């Protein structure tokens, strides 16, 4: 007799990236229905931001999306610059591009490590988290902190590169490029990975476009949509690149898409360092924080994060504090209802892997 029962992939689970729970109804080994349960990481950012001055918010904002904190600072700065009409100096644009691409490589290494641990290849996590750590050393040399940098602010960046920084950064990029063939032999060509993920949790391109999916999940189904090409920001108008797409749409294609974008980001960092103007101002002078008023209006600024399209909707009423800020998290349409639909008719042992292949980041849903 096959029994029906309820199971929690509860908050206390090493297989989910963060504090997040899914309630499953099972019949034997097959999932019949799935319901997500969020709210374990809710801090109320949208209310907290309304109580702080524009400069005080810079300390609060990186903590919204924890694995990749630089995108939060970038969209906040871009929204304020659009409302105030400021133009960022050219060297600052290139520096912002380099920082955002390096943060993207770090986020991919971190999430691929977690994905490997979910399948059972634990060596991948030891390698990738260790390689990511060298970039965190460079970040702490540049900005003073390993994880939350508070480096990109409205008007440019906080300070210029110290001397010798570009050579060390290019040395790190070359080191990761040489290691990519080792990663391929360990993980991406491993038959354990290929057999477990081919054909699992397939989505078609129409389904993806109607469900609000963006980022590598969408590009793995064959649709080319990327904020860096549709609405270029920072120094992307001056760089020359082409983004590859795959067309299978299953868990295998999504992971390989992330590995190809990792390689593209390394090439972009090298290009940007070569084309950067050698000298110049890196910031526009910011006004006195207690008297900093932004004209009335609204703006929506977006960037391409490692998961998809991330944006802030910013409303100002002419005062010294923001009136309303809405955080458009990437993972909200990926989880509700896409993952809940993909989990039906799947095997129980594939469930954490399906959630992880969509790269769902719980702090972006909970805010």
């Amino acid at each position, binding site marked *: 007799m096959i029994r029906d029962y309820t199971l929690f992939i509860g908050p206390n689970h090493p297989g989910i990236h963060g504090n997040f729970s899914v309630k499953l109804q099972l019949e034997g080994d097959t999932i019949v229905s799935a319901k997500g349960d969020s709210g374990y990481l809710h801090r109320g950012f949208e209310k*907290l931001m309304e109580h702080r001055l524009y400069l005080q918010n810079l*300390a609060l904002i990186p*903590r919204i999306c924890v694995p990749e904190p630089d995108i939060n600072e970038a969209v906040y700065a871009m929204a304020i610059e659009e409302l105030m009409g400021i133009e960022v100096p050219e060297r600052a644009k290139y520096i912002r591009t380099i920082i955002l691409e390096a943060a993207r490589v770090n986020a991919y290494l971190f999430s691929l490590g977690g994905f490997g641990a979910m399948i059972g290849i634990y060596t991948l*996590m030891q390698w990738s988290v260790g390689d990511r750590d060298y970039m965190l050393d460079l970040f702490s040399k540049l900005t003073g902190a390993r994880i939350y940098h508070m480096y990109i602010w409205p008007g440019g960046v906080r300070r210029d590169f110290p001397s010798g920084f570009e050579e060390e950064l290019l040395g790190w990029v070359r080191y990761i490029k040489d290691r990519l063939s080792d990663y391929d032999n360990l993980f991406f060509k491993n038959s354990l990975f290929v057999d477990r993920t081919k054909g699992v949790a397939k989505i078609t391109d129409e389904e993806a476009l109607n469900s609000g999916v963006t980022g590598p999940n969408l590009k793995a189904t064959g649709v080319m949509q990327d904020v860096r090409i549709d609405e270029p920001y920072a120094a992307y108008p001056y760089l020359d690149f082409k983004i590859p797409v795959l067309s299978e749409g299953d868990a295998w294609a999504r992971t390989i898409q992330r590995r190809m974008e990792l390689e593209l980001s390394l090439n972009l960092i090298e290009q940007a360092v070569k084309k950067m103007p050698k000298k110049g101002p890196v910031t526009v002078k910011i006004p006195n924080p207690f008297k900093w008023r932004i004209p009335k209006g609204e703006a929506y600024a977006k960037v391409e994060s490692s998961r998809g399209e991330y944006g802030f909707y910013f409303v100002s009423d002419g005062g010294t504090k923001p009136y309303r800020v809405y955080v458009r998290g990437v993972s909200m349409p990926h989880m509700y209802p896409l993952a809940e639909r993909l989990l039906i008719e799947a095997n129980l042992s594939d469930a954490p892997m399906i959630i992880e292949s969509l790269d769902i980041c719980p702090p972006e849903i909970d805010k």
Partner: protein
Amino acid sequence: MGRLDEREAMEILDQLRKRSLWMLHYCTACGAVELPPTMTSRYDMERFGIVPFVTSRQADILLVTGYINIKTLRRIVTVYEQMLDPKYVVGFGSCTINGGIYWDSYAVAKRLDLYLPVDLYIAGCMPRPEAVISAFRHLMRLIDEGKADGYRRYKDNYYWFKANQKKVLGE
């Protein structure tokens, strides 16, 4: 020659216990992003005998990483009561000490030691992996001296802890 009395037996057990503490792998909040670097090959926590483990019935340390959301607090109390004696609670990050940067949030509790007995705090936002390892070594020294007795305090003051939890969680 004779048998050991209870005090000497506890001392020997403490010496063995401190070299094999198992940590519960529950990433509560944003501090959990500095745990993989501490566990993997660069800062290697495993050489001290500390290993992340999945079930709460076989873990010794509960590491509360980061701020304490109310919905999570209810689950942490359940997990703590599922663990077997002797058990230790370590508060990770400045948010467990006095609320940290979320002091005016409507969903974050400010002091962890009103709800669970804390043995050690690690300050910082985020603490570096070296700080985490140094904290674990300090915990080992406290176990050696017999001062890490949070689990006994919880049993002695059970009704006080339960009253605080009920006031904030409301069940």
